[in-house]
């Protein structure tokens, strides 16, 4: 599998070249959010706002009112936790095109509970006028810019950085409101988002060899969530559906699917894999994924529970996943 380094770092500069209305706002994390090349290339379009997120979000609202497309970059937690009222009042209510790029979703940082965004989708999707997206690979990190730019209102993006695998063909960009069907089958449906899609792909590759027919769907548009094909697939699935996300099981993909199923009157079993209503702590991605049960093995285990069969699979049976080492030249600090 192809692994790319610093995708956003290079892509943003290329993409924004012919878009003078695009301004990039930073809250003292320019290197860590891969906007330092943008800063050095277009200094006049780069606004350093300091560690002052509340002002940054309201300020961005003011810029957007005057025709600019402000792209706010910082760690996800610092957007929705530190400046929620500002997002609601200065950005979301007036339906302004402020684009928020939240880095280090969920377990993607050893920075501990203060740095780990575990309930951002839950919070941001309950804001009226907000569009919520999550990137799952390099192709989506490259193409999400076109998606957010076309949405006339505010957008919150769960963004990836550092070394990122390319799971999806670069000629199949992220499209607003469109899911990716990665495998077909009517034994059960697996819905995954973000980095969990790669984990799910690892698990399902080996389960397929066990004769299990799984419909695997990758979701990048979390709001608006208008995917009738998902409901149809779940209706046809023999065992039910499993959602898998790098986020709390409250308010994210699992909750969204539950709402959709209830609305459609679907009486199927739903298993939500995610962070089980707990804070995390500072540790590596691999450790946290195992510890909190959001890796490929966790999916295999839940599938075993669902179908009532043990496959006797372990880590050794799975393809290796590429994870950026904690100390890597693809990031400016170990965070």
């Amino acid at each position, binding site marked *: 599998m192809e692994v790319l380094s610093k995708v956003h770092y290079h892509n943003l500069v290329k993409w924004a070249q012919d878009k003078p209305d695009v301004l990039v706002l930073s809250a003292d994390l320019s290197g860590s959010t891969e906007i330092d090349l943008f800063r050095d290339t277009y200094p006049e379009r780069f606004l350093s706002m*300091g560690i*002052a997120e*509340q002002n940054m979000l309201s300020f961005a609202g*003011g810029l957007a*009112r*005057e*025709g600019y497309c402000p792209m706010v970059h910082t760690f996800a937690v610092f957007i929705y936790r530190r400046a929620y009222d500002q997002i609601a009042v200065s950005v979301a209510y007036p339906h302004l095109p402020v684009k928020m790029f939240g880095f280090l979703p969920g377990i993607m940082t050893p920075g501990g509970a203060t740095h780990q965004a575990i309930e951002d989708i839950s919070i941001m999707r309950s804001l009226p006028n907000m569009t919520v997206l999550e990137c799952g690979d390099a192709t989506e990190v490259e193409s999400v810019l076109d998606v957010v730019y076309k949405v006339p209102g505010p957008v919150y993006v769960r963004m990836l950085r550092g070394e990122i695998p390319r799971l999806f063909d670069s000629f199949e960009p992220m499209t607003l409101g469109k899911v990716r069907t990665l495998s077909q089958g009517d034994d059960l449906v697996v819905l995954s988002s973000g980095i969990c899609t790669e984990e799910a792909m690892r698990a399902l590759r080996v389960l397929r060899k066990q004769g299990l027919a799984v419909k695997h769907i990758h979701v990048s548009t979390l709001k608006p969530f208008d995917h009738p094909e998902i409901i149809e697939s779940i209706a046809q699935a023999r065992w039910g559906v499993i959602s898998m996300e790098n986020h709390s099981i409250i308010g994210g993909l699992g909750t969204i699917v539950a709402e959709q199923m209830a609305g459609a009157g679907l009486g199927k079993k739903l298993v939500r894999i995610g962070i089980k209503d707990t804070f995390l702590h500072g540790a590596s991605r691999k450790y946290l994924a195992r510890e909190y049960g959001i890796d490929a093995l966790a999916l295999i285990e839940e599938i075993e529970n669902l179908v009532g069969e043990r496959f006797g699979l372990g880590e050794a049976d799975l393809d290796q996943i590429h994870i950026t080492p904690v100390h890597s030249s693809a990031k400016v600090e170990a965070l």
Partner: protein
Amino acid sequence: MTSRQRDEWVSQVYQAAGGIRRRVLEHTILNNGGYLSQACSAAEIIATLYLKAMNIGPAAAEPVPPLFSGVPGPGNPDYASGAGYNGPQGPEWDRLVLSPSQYALVLYAALVELGRMAPEGLAQFNRDGSTVEMIGAEHSPGMELMTGSLGQGISQAAGLAMARKRHGDQGRVFVFMSDGEFQSGQVWEAIQAMAFYQLDNTIIYVDVNGQQCDGVVSQVMNIEPLDKRLKAFGARVIRIDGHDVKALARPASLKPDGRPLVVLADTDPCRGMELLAARRPKLHYTRFEREAEREAFRSLLDSL
């Protein structure tokens, strides 16, 4: 031009300020409740902004405000702000951001007094389905931003000001603020950023009336010395008597010098209505407890 002609605007502004107080008092008696002390403290500031300090054109909105037609969003492309009451928008025109939208009643009274809104508009205050909301929203007359959550007006105004600078607009951004807002961290973040980016196309008028919801500002959470604090943050600060209209108008004609300009207008929340002083220290909202009190204010209204 004779000195008498030169100063004609001064008496106009005082007259308008008196009219603002009278209209807010009338409204407060009629509805047995209103933001009366805010009218007393801010009447000269608001009147000076509209009649002298700001470069604005005649109202470009329906004299009687339209009814509420939904919040902004993809399903409501025709949503309009209340900025038209402050004149047309364009590169040459100044803009006004009312940061504490608890002052909306004072603003509406000013719009009526200055012929920018019909008196029927003020009668719609806080009525169901009206845009003339109690805590002014973006669609309320004279408003163009959401500011009811205190401290956010200045940051949004700073964003507008930076955008206007980048566009090369001559028009400035005026912000009306209350002193209590300076207890909020976001305001200092905004001042810091405005100084850093040299947003000298902004002029912030602060109604330093020493009052907030819980009572006296210095007893709720001290903000003084506000002038020194602001200067230390890089602002250009002028502290004046907020009831002296010449002093209020002067800063608006200063040559910009790279710093955001803050006009600290020291005011009296009972100005023009000494009766209010009996209610100290709770002046944030006026509701008459006894009929005798209401009568006393009714007599005051008749005398104005």
